[in-house]
């Protein structure tokens, strides 16, 4: 109960736009939960509702079993990075963290600790307006970590980070989960979370599309194809088709379904067809995700050709 985020039956409308529609999921401690969906899918809205910034029309969102608004020192319970740009440009980075620390009775040394942790110690006295997007992300992450909370939420934390920063944040997220914290990370790109997330909550158009583990999602997207590269594609196709397989050819590569991999090798070798490569086709998480969300994206574009995406992204930023 303590280190969880629990969203139940959440529904949120902005005017006539339904941003979140009957969304339920749980974020468990000790793992990184990826919150994936195209732009405008309702990820940021959900996070705002979790923080009690926006009031849902229906449903509840609980952190550690409680409503966020009832927390006395919320930064010690939940750390959140919502919008890295939401810093007054005239305020020094360190001052930004200082007032946050004061508000939750956190010691001042904690400010310097998190600045060190995110690698901003040397530029802590610079005004936030002079920061690059990547530095602001790091500052936002520092703010989230300030209260050493057991629950963490990051909305698109990879945005604007350089490759080194991307590697760093992956390590950070894994490390936080490894310490037993519940970590919710949103992204609209599956590739960003591929190697990081243990659990995935996939949303599109405000609805839950999948609530699954990474390995289950991969398995469901795999269809047992075997890729064969050969110098004699015509002969191979005849042999494999006769053996009961289905073959699709493209660019000198044959995609075979209906036959096991070792069967394919034995068959072709026995008939003297030269094989340069045989591989199990592995659907990437990206492909699985695209397949899942394609409907949601197309649905949106078809229904609201004029406002579709831009309208949805306005909601994201609102």
């Amino acid at each position, binding site marked *: 109960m303590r280190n969880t985020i629990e969203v139940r039956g959440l529904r949120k409308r902005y005017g006539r736009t339904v941003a979140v529609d009957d969304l339920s999921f749980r974020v468990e401690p000790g793992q990184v939960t990826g919150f994936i969906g195209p732009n405008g899918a309702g990820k940021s809205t959900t996070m*705002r509702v979790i923080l*009690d910034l926006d009031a849902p029309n229906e449903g509840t969102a609980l952190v550690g079993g409680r409503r966020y608004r009832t927390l006395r020192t919320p930064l010690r319970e939940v750390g959140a990075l919502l919008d890295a740009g939401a*810093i007054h440009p*005239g305020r020094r980075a360190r001052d930004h963290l200082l*007032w*946050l620390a004061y508000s939750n009775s956190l010691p001042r040394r904690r400010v310097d600790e998190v600045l060190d942790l995110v690698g901003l110690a040397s530029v802590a006295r610079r005004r936030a307006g002079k920061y690059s997007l990547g530095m602001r992300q790091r500052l936002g992450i520092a703010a989230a970590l300030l209260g050493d909370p057991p629950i963490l939420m990051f909305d698109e934390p990879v945005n604007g980070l350089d490759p080194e920063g991307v590697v760093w944040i992956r390590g950070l997220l894994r490390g936080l989960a490894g310490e037993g914290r519940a970590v919710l990370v949103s992204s609209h790109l599956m590739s960003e979370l591929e190697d990081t997330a243990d659990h995935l909550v996939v949303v599109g158009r405000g609805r839950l599309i999948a609530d699954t583990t990474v390995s289950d999602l991969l398995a469901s997207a795999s269809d047992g194809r075997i890729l064969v590269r050969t110098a004699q594609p015509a002969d191979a196709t005849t042999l494999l088709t006769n053996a009961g397989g289905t073959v699709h050819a493209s660019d000198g590569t044959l995609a075979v379904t209906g036959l096991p991999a070792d069967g394919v090798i034995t068959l072709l070798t026995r008939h003297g067809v030269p094989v340069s490569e045989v591989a199990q086709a592995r659907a990437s998480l990206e492909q699985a995700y695209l397949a899942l969300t394609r409907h949601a994206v197309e649905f949106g574009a078809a229904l609201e050709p004029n406002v579709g995406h831009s309208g949805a992204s306005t909601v994201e930023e609102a």
Partner: protein
Amino acid sequence: MRQLLRAELAKLASLRGTVWCLSLGFILMVLLSAWVVSSSKFYGDLPKPADTFSFVHRPMSGDGSVVARVTTQDDSHPWAKAGVIVKESLSSGSRYAALMLTPGHGVRLEADFTTDIAGSAGGAPRWLRLTRSGGSITGYESTDGTTWSQVGTVTLDALPWTVEVGLFVSSPLDFEYVQGGGAQGIGIIPTTGRAVFDHVNVEPTDSSTGWTYLKVVPTPTPGQPQMRPGPGGMTEVDGSFTVTGEGDIAWYGIPSFFRPDARDIVSDSLQGVHIGLLAMIVLGVLAAAAEYKTGMIRATLAAYPRRGPVLAAKALVVAGVAFVVGLPASTAAFLVAQPILRDRGVRPPAYPYRSLIEVDVLRAVVGTAAALALLAVFALAIGMLLRRSSRALPLVIAVVMVPQIVGPLLSLDADKWLTRLTPTAGLAIQETTERFDTAIDPWAGLGVLAAYTALALTIALWSLRHRDA
């Protein structure tokens, strides 16, 4: 709550804009106050004593007394005067001592345009007696002519052997204030007093002269407009004198003396508040709107999700900062203005020197800071409500400034009501003198501003609780 106050204070203090806004506000507030008192032509020259009245007189040599009963007195003005007088000579401005009845202020013993001693609160019919003994003149009053009580004694040094004594009647001017189209005017309305005297007696009796009527008026000053001699006269029937007259015998020190255009030099010294309040409005609006503009409000509410304390902390910090900057600013403005006024000849008796330790001055100076603090919180609440400085700033400035710009274009009554009903009423706390254009009591005015602030805060809290951040 304490950590929240600390956080909000740290937020405000960590922005250069806050420091700039407050420093600039402070400096301009003092400078504008100094400029107003050094450039305005409000104060005029020191007026001459008023000495216009109807005089029924006869000479009296050496020690003696004059006695009369005032049987009736018309209520032409609270400060109409009817009584007995001992005067150095018949010329206007000469020295005197007089004992009189007034319709509004009882029995008074007055002398030399500066001394005023209150007797009983009663009116006509009443016996009055002035007794001269050398330079001392003592006034007595009585309801029956036999039992006398002393009102007081005044000393007129080097009074001539022979003086003029007798009955006098005066009734001062009423004033009518008109305003409109940005201009103010003061209309003068003469009032005519009338009183009936009997048992008129002078001792020692000198039968060689009788009673003479004279309308005492000031000698015309060349180039100055001369007031038309108003009505006045005397009739005597069987020792009963009916005297009518207008004017007054008074100057600074005599409460009936009244300058309709007298300034309130304390509030004049604090006029820089108009710049100061702009700075505080900017402070208040930006403390709220900047959070919405940058998205900081979400960090604020995430760090402290309970809305009531968030708004309370913001209001307290903004109020505290505005007060802490406003108090030295208004104190400095007052202290800078006083020597400037002195150098310009704005001094006693027309304008007594004012000091910070006087209660009403303290109220004005500290109250100015309090009004600035309330206004800053009002601006904060509107900023929280409208969320954008581009909307909140013009609105708050309009609410505060429009009544001050539009007011003088309206009639005096409409102007007063406009002041009473808008947050501008709070500036009444600066006033220490009741004037014709005084709209509202100082504390009540501050109360109006406080009520607006409380209302705005309440609506802002409702909005903060029920609207998405």
